[in-house]
């Protein structure tokens, strides 16, 4: 029986943010309705296919977009379909993402009743000017309201997303945001340095000079402050971008770094069956059309060759605090390079694992490239 993580993508938001490159669009009830229908179709298709058929779900994750905009009764149908098709236990981590200001806080109670046990809130910043620049529809107060509503609905496990490297943001203003986030007592925090993605309003603004590109050195300073603050607040830095209170590491998140299988349903969703990766079309329209005529909405499939598998293990392993097995690394990569990296402080060895020290984690790609270039 295959154990896997299930991801369900809901590509609609009330408004698109200025930095966002995820597949999502402004919600339109008619399209959203059609989308929901075919989402079930795809779920049923996959439930009949190997290796997913009769598999056991390690975690389920409703991502987006803003999946909390899905009607409660539809979520119920989804969850019923999931538990009818796959093995799902009450302990299974089930996450739903929500964005403050989406007027959905009153649904949290019902989400919780349906078995969803983890709430991931897109806070991004606790500075209203920054939120405005990012194109978020909410204020700092809306974040607090969402967290409070989550708590009242019964959620113990609440994660917040925070951005740093926002234009105009300083180390101090990020620290203020971070402190406000910690004051809300989340169990989990995901933090990303803002990157300017193609085809976003930010990319256009940088191009026409109305926005300055993020300064990587400032981001590095912010990161440096971040890891100190999080350590003092009692969080484990269990993955490059993720921090959790003890016992609240995200099972779903770790799936991606551990190279264990995952099934993605919905537009642009990615899947990995242990050997190959495949992903759905980015186009909501194509997705709906294909499934309506009972065709698969696949965009592409990629088989991972054995050398590529080894490379993936390298750069995914080093993203986590679990690290990379020393014997594995020495077997496949240059021992001299690994030794040099240890001597120069870019790798540590703990319990027979190579780890990138927290202070150097932002140079992960350099470390990986160094290892790959000499093997």
């Amino acid at each position, binding site marked *: 029986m295959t154990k896997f993580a299930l991801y369900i993508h809901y590509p609609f938001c009330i408004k698109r943010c200025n930095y966002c490159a995820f597949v999502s669009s402004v919600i339109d009830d008619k399209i959203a309705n059609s989308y929901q229908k075919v989402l079930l179709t795809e779920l049923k298709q996959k439930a009949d296919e190997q290796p997913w058929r009769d598999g056991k779900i390690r975690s389920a994750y409703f991502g987006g977009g803003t999946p909390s905009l899905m009607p409660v009764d539809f979520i119920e149908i989804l969850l019923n379909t999931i538990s009818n098709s796959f093995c799902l236990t009450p302990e299974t981590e089930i996450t739903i993402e929500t964005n403050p200001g989406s007027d959905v806080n009153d649904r949290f109670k019902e989400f919780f009743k349906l078995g969803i046990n983890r709430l991931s809130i897109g806070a991004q910043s606790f500075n209203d000017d920054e939120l405005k620049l990012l194109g978020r529809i909410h204020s700092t107060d809306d974040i607090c309201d969402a967290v409070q509503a989550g708590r009242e609905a019964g959620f113990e496990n609440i994660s917040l997303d925070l951005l740093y490297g926002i234009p105009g943001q300083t180390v101090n203003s990020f620290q203020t945001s971070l402190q406000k986030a910690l004051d809300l007592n989340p169990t989990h925090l995901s933090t990303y340095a803002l*990157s300017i993605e193609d085809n976003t309003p930010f990319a256009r603004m940088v191009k026409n000079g109305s926005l300055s590109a993020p300064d*990587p050195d400032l*981001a590095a300073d912010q990161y440096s402050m971040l890891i100190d603050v999080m350590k003092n607040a009692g969080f484990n830095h269990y993955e490059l971008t993720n921090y959790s209170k003890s016992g609240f590491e995200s099972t779903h998140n770790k*799936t991606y770094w551990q190279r264990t299988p995952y099934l993605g349903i919905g537009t642009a969703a*990615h899947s990995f069956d242990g050997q190959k990766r495949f992903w759905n079309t980015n186009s909501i329209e194509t997705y709906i059309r294909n499934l309506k005529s009972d065709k698969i909405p696949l965009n592409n499939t990629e088989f991972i060759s054995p050398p590529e598998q080894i490379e993936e293990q390298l*750069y995914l392993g080093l993203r986590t605090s679990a690290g990379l097995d020393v014997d594995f690394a020495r077997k496949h990569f240059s021992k001299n390079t690994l030794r040099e990296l240890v001597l120069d402080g870019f790798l540590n060895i703990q319990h027979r694992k190579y780890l990138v020290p927290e202070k150097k984690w*932002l*140079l992960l790609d350099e470390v990986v490239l160094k290892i*790959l270039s000499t093997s």
Partner: protein
Amino acid sequence: MIKKNIRNFCIIAHIDHGKSTLADRLLEATGLIASIGERTQFLDDMDLERERGITIKAHAITMNHKAADGIEYVLNLIDTPGHVDFSYEVSRSLAACEGAILLVDASQGVEAQTIANVYLALENDLTIIPAINKIDLVSAQPDLVQQQIMDLIGCEADEVLRISARQGIGIDQVINAVIDLIPPPKPYSDKFSSIEDEPLQALIFDSIFDNYRGAIPYIKVVSGVLKPDQMIFFHSTRKKYQVDEVGLLRLKREPQKQLAAGEVGYIIPGCKEVGETRVGDTIGDVENPLPKPLSGYREPKPMVYAGLYPTDADEYEDFQNALAKLKLNDASLQYEPETSGALGFGFRCGFLGLLHLEIVQERLEREYNLDLVSTVPNVKYRIACTDDQILYVDNPVHLPSPMAIKEVEEPIVKAQIVTPPEFIGAIMQLSMERRGIYENTEYLDPQRAVLHFKMPLAEIIYDFYDRLKSMSRGYASFDYEHTGWAVTKMVRLDILLNGELIDALSVIVHEDKAYAWGRRVVDKLAQIIPRQMFEVAIQAAISSRIIARATVRALRKNVLAKCYGGDITRKRKLLEKQKEGKKRMKMLGHVEVPQEAFMAILKSD
């Protein structure tokens, strides 16, 4: 008897004065190619030539033309390169001709290089047919240019043709002048009643390599006859071959039963080994050899040296083979293996000049698909050592320590610069900056001065021509010839990356210019070297005394953190892209340096 209907000629012209267009018109008028509406430029068949607007390699083409007298003439047009670096190639082409068309742009006038080539043609006793081109241009000043030409070659006004190759004006006049004025090839000797009895002499003026047929020299038969199956030898190598094929060069090679004295064509000697058909060499007959080769051939002397290295060490053998092939049709290219601590295995190459270096490098990269790095070029120095030994040094690494040097001498050239008078001041200043010694100024006409300088060759191989062109808005032109050696004060300047001496970046530089050079290179490297995992200290030093320093701060962030819902593929692709980027880097010591760094050091700002 030698055929009286052969005319061997070339076109002497400055870049962009219309040589290729005139050549096309001649091909068209003699029916070799169909009518040409726009320019096609048949003679420049390398991309590189067309892009740079210059002819790098001499080629040849045979045309037939029935003249008014009813005789069918054979017109052999031998193309010549048009840049100052290639004066040796010009000399070989001229040696195969009896006449030359001197083509001058009606609005540009006579340029320095044209003068140099005209002198070379006169030395070779060539008949010169002067022609003013582009007379249709609004800016044309044919009377002024005519006077310049008359002063230059001492001809009469009515001898100067006025044409427009682009418009097809005056092409017939050119052909008639070639036929009427240029003499047929000179007979070898009147001792022989038949050409067949003459000892064979054929001059190689160019040579190409064909993957199927091997080396193919382009030749002019000076005496005797060349036929398939004949046993021949090359004077310089004494190697013998049996001739596979001889023929004429038209748009394609056209095999013939023989090539006789006076004729121009090709020979396929069945020579598979690269490097044995040397341009400028003489072909003789094994059965009937002459003891001496033809005169007029000069050993090509490289003037500029640089190390060339494959970026990828695995390409060393390919590089070696490519150099051997290039050498086949570029007699002036010299090379020998050298090793650099920084760049690994490569070759020290000798070139005629900086443009020649660039062209060779580009051809190696394009035609042989190699990725190369070049060190900073330098001239050859003559060093008198304290132990009374004389050394020639063409590589900074081999410069003895200052203690061991009694005296350094550097090559000196006589430079002539032709310019409109308004740029004289700026050119004087440039030449002084380049340690030039002013000699005198002549006027070709009130609009055109010729400045004469003596200058160190080392000062003109670096960027002089580009500077001259830009400060004179393209009007000034320049040529030089070697005159000898002069005592100078040179030092070796080293570049260190994180304390490690990078031998490939060392240069020999004049004492007074060492500081400026060091500062410039250090700053340039600081701009080009990307931030990496460590801070990089860049230093310039003369005998371990640091004269300039710059720092590249350590990189602090390079990671693709965000993962889009399990989209590992995107991560891997971005990593692959970064990997490709790293491949374009050279590890110098422990520092990653982009290949462009080497080229950037060669260019001024």
